[in-house]
């Protein structure tokens, strides 16, 4: 499912003294099956943007195309349910949306809302639990008896169970410890590869964006200011610093080396493995001379 935004604007509380423009001039194309990271400060408009992906918010100007769906500003769209099945959103701290007595029931809630039979949903719970790396024995437990990290996985399983084509993630690793963060990010990368899902990741973490995304969108004060592959984005470090954004440590390190050594690496280093390789080449070259 391809996603296209054309000249999208969103104003909150339109026609009141409290009117606020949260988004403007948004043009986006997201290819089916790609992994896109959206980066920006709190208040840059990224949460407003992500709510346009399944019609939770509708543009006050412009058009949003989501696969066969077209949402045009000004026209109240009524039949959004089929769209919401195709685009799953995992909100920040998704464990706050759990409400059923058992993990199983909570996971089945979404798919059953979209018309799956209880029988089929229950039969497949095991599959969804495995997808988020939870053991079978949590199935009949209360979600509230689990640890914070496990609760989050249950909530994510509840969204994955809808079998969406697009998965929108809002800060999915906030509040997790380093190990939990890495496991979760690897899990999403796997989903993209195995299930051919389109992934839109909203994050503060430059490291995560650099490591996992095919494409990065940078938002600033309600609009998109940069768009490109991680290599393109992180080639211009000063630009990012100028926008008040963090730069991955790998890129900062690369810059420090380049300045000290008076050299230029051919590509930006996005992971620690990249740095390792570049330094290796540098040092073997000296040895060889």
């Amino acid at each position, binding site marked *: 499912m391809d996603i296209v935004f054309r000249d999208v604007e969103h104003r909150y509380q339109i026609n009141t003294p409290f009117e606020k423009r949260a988004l403007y001039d948004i043009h986006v194309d997201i290819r089916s099956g790609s992994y896109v990271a959206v980066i920006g*400060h*709190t208040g840059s408009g990224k949460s407003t943007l992500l709510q346009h992906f399944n019609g939770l918010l509708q543009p006050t100007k412009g058009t949003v195309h989501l696969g066969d769906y077209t949402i045009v500003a000004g026209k109240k769209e009524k039949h959004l349910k089929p769209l919401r099945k195709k685009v799953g959103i995992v909100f920040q701290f998704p464990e706050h949306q759990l409400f059923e007595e058992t993990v199983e029931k909570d996971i089945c809630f979404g798919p059953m809302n979209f018309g799956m039979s209880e029988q089929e949903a229950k039969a497949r719970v095991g599959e969804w639990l495995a997808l988020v790396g939870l053991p079978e024995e949590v199935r009949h437990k209360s979600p509230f008896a689990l*640890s*914070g*990290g496990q609760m989050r996985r249950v909530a994510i399983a509840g969204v994955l169970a809808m079998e969406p084509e697009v998965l929108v993630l809002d800060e999915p690793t*906030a*509040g*997790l*410890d*380093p*190990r*939990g963060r890495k496991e979760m990010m690897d899990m999403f990368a796997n989903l993209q590869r195995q299930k051919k899902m389109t992934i839109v990741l909203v994050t*503060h*973490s430059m490291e995560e964006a650099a490591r996992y995304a095919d494409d990065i969108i940078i938002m600033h004060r309600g609009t998109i200011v940069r768009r490109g592959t991680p290599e393109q984005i992180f080639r211009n470090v000063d630009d990012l610093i100028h926008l*008040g954004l*963090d730069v991955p*440590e*790998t890129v*900062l*390190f690369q810059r*420090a*080396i380049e300045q*000290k*050594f008076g050299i230029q690496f051919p590509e930006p280093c996005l992971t*620690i493995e990249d*740095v*390792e390789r570049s*330094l*290796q080449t*540098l*040092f073997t070259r*000296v*040895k060889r*001379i």
Partner: protein
Amino acid sequence: MEVAVRVDDVSFQYANEQTYALQNISFQVYKGEWVTIVGHNGSGKSTLAKLLIGLLPPTSGTIHVCGIPLNEETIWDVREQLGIVFQNPDNQFVGTTVQDDVAFGLENRGIQKEEMKKRINEALKKVKMEDFIHHEPHRLSGGQKQRVAIASAIALQPNVIILDEATSMLDPSGKKEVLHVMQSLRREHDMTVISITHDLNEVAKADRVIVMNKGKIVLEGTPAHIFSYGEKLEEMGLDLPFSLQLSRRLKNNGIPMTADHLTMEGLVSELWTLYSAMSNIVTK
């Protein structure tokens, strides 16, 4: 050195649970020291925090805060020594505006209006929130709310400040704000700080680090000492600073690094030294 907090052989077991959440924990925090307690989620560090502020009584062992043994009778005296900042910025904001929130603790202590005014202004100035004195909480960012929480704590002039994962719910700029404020407070006012966290930037800046795993203290020492246990920390689900990870990787690749670097500057300059030495040998 004067001891601010002394924890002696403390164990704790939650009711209805077989395993101990804390086992034979002993450590001391000296006056003016910044101690960081790290561990992954479930290591027992949050339970330890609850014990330190008297929300849970230890199953065995004793805790002294500024010389006062912590027990049911002394709990209010002990709390007067402590200022605590919790994780959730919203759930510790009692007042309807910033000034009301800082005033809340002062009111509880029966402090007179004039003195209250002075302390509110001072405390807000220290956390750089003096321009927000009349703001309501829903108009503040997470980082700003946590700064107000710090102001509310320091207005009561405690001897020890406990940060209980105070930055874990904040975005990167909020984290920076709060850490920055804490750093400057510590420089200028010689405060004793116990920070419970899994944020690496905090760990690297501490005087001393205590690492917890499965309810026990597994490591204790300066940040450099702690980080020298690289793999062991990773096994416990903790991250290593980038420079340290890279130093180790390079060493494994046959680049003769002499040290595990905690800072990027250190690593870059050693690499430069090595590089120039090698190219000199070659040119000779």
